[in-house]
């Protein structure tokens, strides 16, 4: 289409599918990681929180490389020509992404070297690298440490014609060296040694009165290199790290045993094509040439790093004891849910019967959800527990409860999503454990990931059989539930219970139910439901009725849904989006999206809840969901969207949305040019939504206490 053609169309009715109205999802993702990096640079954050954010940017980036960059490369290699939502080919995207990533990495390290490291120094915390930095006693310590702990686990490997280049494992740090045999003919050989993962990478040196000093394991190994290659002279050496394509390719239709197939593929992940090579900045050119040749990486894939490779070690630093004063303490989490206080003395089922309970985590504790399953496991009246599990914590109390329930003869059905990315290994282990305990374990569905979060407890009560349902926006993971913001609902309403039964029937392979009462499920119905809800607002706006959409999610990149939002905006629907991560929608384009605002909140807790508000001509409807508005969620996953209909729950959700829309501290507004602008103003009008939620949860817990303790206690004689 020519430019003039485009202009002509725009003056009439714009073509809302025009790629120029959409942002590329990879670039939008990088913009998200940049927002995390801003938090690392933000002077107002405590020092160790900034370190944590920098570490998060690095782990985010690792995953981005392994999955997204890898997939772009696959597309380029396969000659895939189709353009993306923003009109870019895979090649164009790859080029743009690689350019962005190089400067992003530079910014990460300038944040470390120029800002955080000096600040740590000021606080008396230093990283030592070279021999020259070490005192004599430290040298002694390092020598001993190396000899006793490090040396025994190292496996140096030389490469020559009879010994091929070894497998360099994904994401491991390695030290490469060029060596010559002592007394030999001077022929240069390549050797490499992996920095072992079994030893802490951050090693604290003994207190010498100069503050706390640390050395990284790879620096210790570099120092000990001569001990590893006794018969060789080391010409040069340097650390490097490789990132590989880690997308599993599983032909589920062909895989007879999904569990075995995934185990097999996990081994192959280590062998994926190298797509990123990080090397220390001052690496010897000959050494680099050798590594580059063996790993077959292009120049654009090489990142010269001015500092320690792999900044995720900063999370280890963050969790070291003794730095509490440098961490965030202004945010409150884990408060009791008022309706579920004193759970030890309370029957959680009785509480749910009194009315639906909506919880906002992590401000309100996730404990009730764990207790719900634990209680169900030992309650004599409970007949069955059914649950979907996507990602669970390492030592999950939920898994333990499910095992206990099965051992007590309850019917326990668990859908364990084996395909949860990077959790596959973990999931296989406890799927087997559950099976061993007698649970009925379903290993996900062919071709679909089961991402919905739902638990159903069937209980035979005096008057009738009753179903208790928990539905949530976040995983049944008690660890991440302390860090992620999510919303969960307990209910025993019959219509939700019937739908929950139907969900598990579908997951067990039975035919779909004839009708759903309340739930909308992806991939079959959810997208249509979302679109019809948006269209209803569009139609209402056209008729002059009140129309508004507020939608909070992690990512927005479904073209059809975005086009509907544009259409709604054009008809005058006011749309406020709170999208933490990727957003392919472009806000504020005249005639297309001028009624749409987008903000992203990157704060102390990871924004993870999905909340949707539709004005519905003055009778607002509120929904929660496990799904983002992304193609993968709406079309390739089993997801649930459910309404919150009780007034108290609706008010709570509206309050969450309104507070987040008012946030000035951690919110950034998406500008028409795709940049994100901070809106932090003067101190008088500053709003930090995450702090407000925490404070409110604490206040609610206290006021509940007060109400309860308004009983006069008679004084009794102390000697009585």
């Amino acid at each position, binding site marked *: 289409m020519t430019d003039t053609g485009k202009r002509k169309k725009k003056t009439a009715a714009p073509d809302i599918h025009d790629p120029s109205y959409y942002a590329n999802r990879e670039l939008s993702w990088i913009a998200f990681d940049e927002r995390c990096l801003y938090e690392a640079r933000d002077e107002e954050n405590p020092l160790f929180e900034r370190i944590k954010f920098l570490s998060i940017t690095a782990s985010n980036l690792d995953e981005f490389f392994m999955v997204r960059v890898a997939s772009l490369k696959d597309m380029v290699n396969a000659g895939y020509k189709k353009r993306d939502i923003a009109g870019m080919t895979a090649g164009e995207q790859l080029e743009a992404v690689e350019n962005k990533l190089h400067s992003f990495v530079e910014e990460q390290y300038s944040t470390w070297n120029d800002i955080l490291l000096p600040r740590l120094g000021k606080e008396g915390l230093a990283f030592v690298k070279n021999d020259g930095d070490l005192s004599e006693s430290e040298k002694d310590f390092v020598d001993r440490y190396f000899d006793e702990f490090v040396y025994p686990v190292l496996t140096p490997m030389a490469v020559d014609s009879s010994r091929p280049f070894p497998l360099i494992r994904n994401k491991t740090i390695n030290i490469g060296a060029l060596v010559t045999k002592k007394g030999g003919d001077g022929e240069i050989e390549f050797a490499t040694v992996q920095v072992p993962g079994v030893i802490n990478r951050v090693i604290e040196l003994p207190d010498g009165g100069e503050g706390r000093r640390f050395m990284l394991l790879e620096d210790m190994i570099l120092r000990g290199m001569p001990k590893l290659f006794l018969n060789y002279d080391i010409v040069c050496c340097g650390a490097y790290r490789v990132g590989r394509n880690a997308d599993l390719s599983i032909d589920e239709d062909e895989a007879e045993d999904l569990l075995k197939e995934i185990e097999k593929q996990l081994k192959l992940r280590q062998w994926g094509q190298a797509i990123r090579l990080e090397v220390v900045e001052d690496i010897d050119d000959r050494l680099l040439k050798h590594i580059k040749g063996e790993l077959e990486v292009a120049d654009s894939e090489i990142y010269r790093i001015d500092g320690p490779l792999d900044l995720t070690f900063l999370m280890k630093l963050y969790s070291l004891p003794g730095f509490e004063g440098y961490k965030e303490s202004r945010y409150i989490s884990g408060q009791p849910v008022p309706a579920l206080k004193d759970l030890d003395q309370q029957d959680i089922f009785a509480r749910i019967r009194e009315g639906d309970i909506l919880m906002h985590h992590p401000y309100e504790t996730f404990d009730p959800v764990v207790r719900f399953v634990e209680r169900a496991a030992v309650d004599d009246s409970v*007949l*069955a527990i*059914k649950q979907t599990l996507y990602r669970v914590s390492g030592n999950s109390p939920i898994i333990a409860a499910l095992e206990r329930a099965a051992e007590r003869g309850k*019917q326990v*059905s668990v859908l364990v999503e084996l395909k949860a990315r990077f959790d596959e290994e973990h999931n296989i282990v406890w799927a087997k454990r559950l099976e061993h305990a007698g649970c*009925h374990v379903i290993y996900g569905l062919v071709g679909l990931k089961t991402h919905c979060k739902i638990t159903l407890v*069937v209980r*035979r009560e005096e*008057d*009738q*059989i009753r179903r208790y349902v928990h539905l949530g926006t976040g995983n049944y993971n008690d660890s991440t539930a302390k860090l992620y913001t999510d919303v969960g609902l307990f209910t025993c309403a019959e219509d939700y219970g019937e739908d929950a*039964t*139907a969900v598990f*029937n579908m997951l*067990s*392979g*039975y*035919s*779909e*139910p*004839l*009708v759903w009462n309340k739930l909308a499920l992806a991939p*079959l*119905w959810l997208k249509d439901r979302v679109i019809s809800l948006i269209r209803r607002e569009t139609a209402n706006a056209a008729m002059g009725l009140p129309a508004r959409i507020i939608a909070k999610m992690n990512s927005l990149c479904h073209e059809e849904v975005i086009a509907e939002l544009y259409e709604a905006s054009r008809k005058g629907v006011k749309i406020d989006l709170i999208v933490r991560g990727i957003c392919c929608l472009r806000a504020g384009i005249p005639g297309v999206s001028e009624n749409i605002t987008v903000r992203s909140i990157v704060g102390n807790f990871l924004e993870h809840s999905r909340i949707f508000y539709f004005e519905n001509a003055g009778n607002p409807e509120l929904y929660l969901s496990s799904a983002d508005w992304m193609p993968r969620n709406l079309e390739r996953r089993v997801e649930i969207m459910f309404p919150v209909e009780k007034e108290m729950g609706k008010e709570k959700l509206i309050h969450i949305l309104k507070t987040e829309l008012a946030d000035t501290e951690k919110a950034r507004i998406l500008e028409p040019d795709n940049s994100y602008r901070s809106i932090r103003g003067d101190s008088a009008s500053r709003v930090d939504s995450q702090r407000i939620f925490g404070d409110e949860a604490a206040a609610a817990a206290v006021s509940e206490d007060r109400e309860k303790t308004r009983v006069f206690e008679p004084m009794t004689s102390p000697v009585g």
Partner: protein
Amino acid sequence: MASQVCAAIDVGSYEIAMKIYEIGSKKGIRELDHVRVGVDLGSESYATGRLSANRVSEIIRILREFDREMKTWGVTVVRACGTSALRESENVDMILERIEKSTGIKIELLSNSEQRFLDYKATALKSDLFEKIISKPSAIVDIGGGSIQISLFDDDRLVTTQNLKLGVLRIHEMLQTLGAGTLRYGALVAELVGAQLSVFSRMYLSDRRIKNVILVDDYVSPLMQNPRILTDSGFLVEGGDVPDKGHVSAAGFIHFIDHVHDESRGKNAEKLGVSYENLPLVYISGLIIKCIAKEMGAEDLWAPGVTLCDGIAWEYAEKKGALGKHHDFEKDIIASAYNISTRFRGNKKRSELIGDLAVRIFDAMKPVHGLDERERLLLRIAAILHDCGKYISMINLGETSYSIIMGSEIIGLSHRERQTVAAAVRYIYTKVPPPDSLDRVVEQFDDRMRLTLIKLTAMLRVATGLDRSHLKKFKKAVFTLEGDELYITANTIEDTTLESGLFDDRAGFFEEVFGVRPIIRRKDAK
């Protein structure tokens, strides 16, 4: 009654389904769970007359999975029923035994009339609307895989029911044999169904118009239960109202089917949420309904959304007294017996009289005969139909009556019950054969059933013997059991010489069976 959790399983022609219910006297009946697995038993069984070992293994696997689901609810009562696909398999006995051994689930084979009766019970019991709808001329159209059952109502009573061998799968197979494309389905189905329908219409409808069609089927009913489909998929006629769940005007329905015809297969599948392979079956069901609605001149269609599983559960609940006041099905069975009698030129008043005398004998003989209420009903039905064969021949009354009863469908009676009725009528007129020969007539009867047949026959013989003259002289007779004598006191001024004179033969048989001698006494009515 403490609440009970029951599972109802339907091993059908193209699907095995299980519903789980909580049944209690306080809250009635509540559906807890519904699982379905598509498995095509019908095609194999209809085509080859057998089910292969693989298919049976599949049934066993599914039933084992069902067992897990039953544990979820703490099920204590299970009733599993098999329909035409199993019924039409020659090797059904072996199949059922294998299934029972592997799963512990005993599948009960339902005759067509039992199956339809259960569907009917579910329809009548599940919704309060039923009584209101049948107060106007109505028909239940129950579309199965192999046949369609049409039942007509008159004055709140089910009066006749007919089975047409025109099930959805059967028609689908015929169309495939013809190699017809879907575009021609409309015309071909109209032709196939139309021919049989016009016979039905001539015989049973005459000029009656049926206002309401109540629909029981597996393909169209779910669509009519889905509010989204009702508003989005062509059911809306211009100027018409948005249909309520399960309710569509006949015009709206025809509009919908024409709409389906005009859309592409892919679009229909997506819009109706129906799988690609089931779509032709939905379409054929729709076409059948369209033909029937037109033929009957129906105004409204109602799909209550019931399944055979519902029928199984509601019947159980009814037996357990878990239902409040509800439709009286016994009256339907009696009404359809009268209807058959009328069709074969029976005299309604005489049928009533014989029926009445028979149950009065039954009631008086209660301390002796050991039969139950169901058998009392069979006796009444047999009495109503006691001489229907005279329409064909007055000489071989026993044989011809037997054939008519066996050839007529009496909704609500099982195959064996119908056999009992027919044979009891037969032996009013002919000698009860010795056990060996009797076996050939009622080959699968056990001892109790055979004895029941003989007891009913004895009572029928006495009842019909009391109206030899057809003058209803014993209309007000009183039956009193005293020791081993049954006194029949005729409160009449009429001469009872004929009845008394020819009574000995009948009394003899009665005495042989019960050890009680019936004796006619005359007391002149004032």
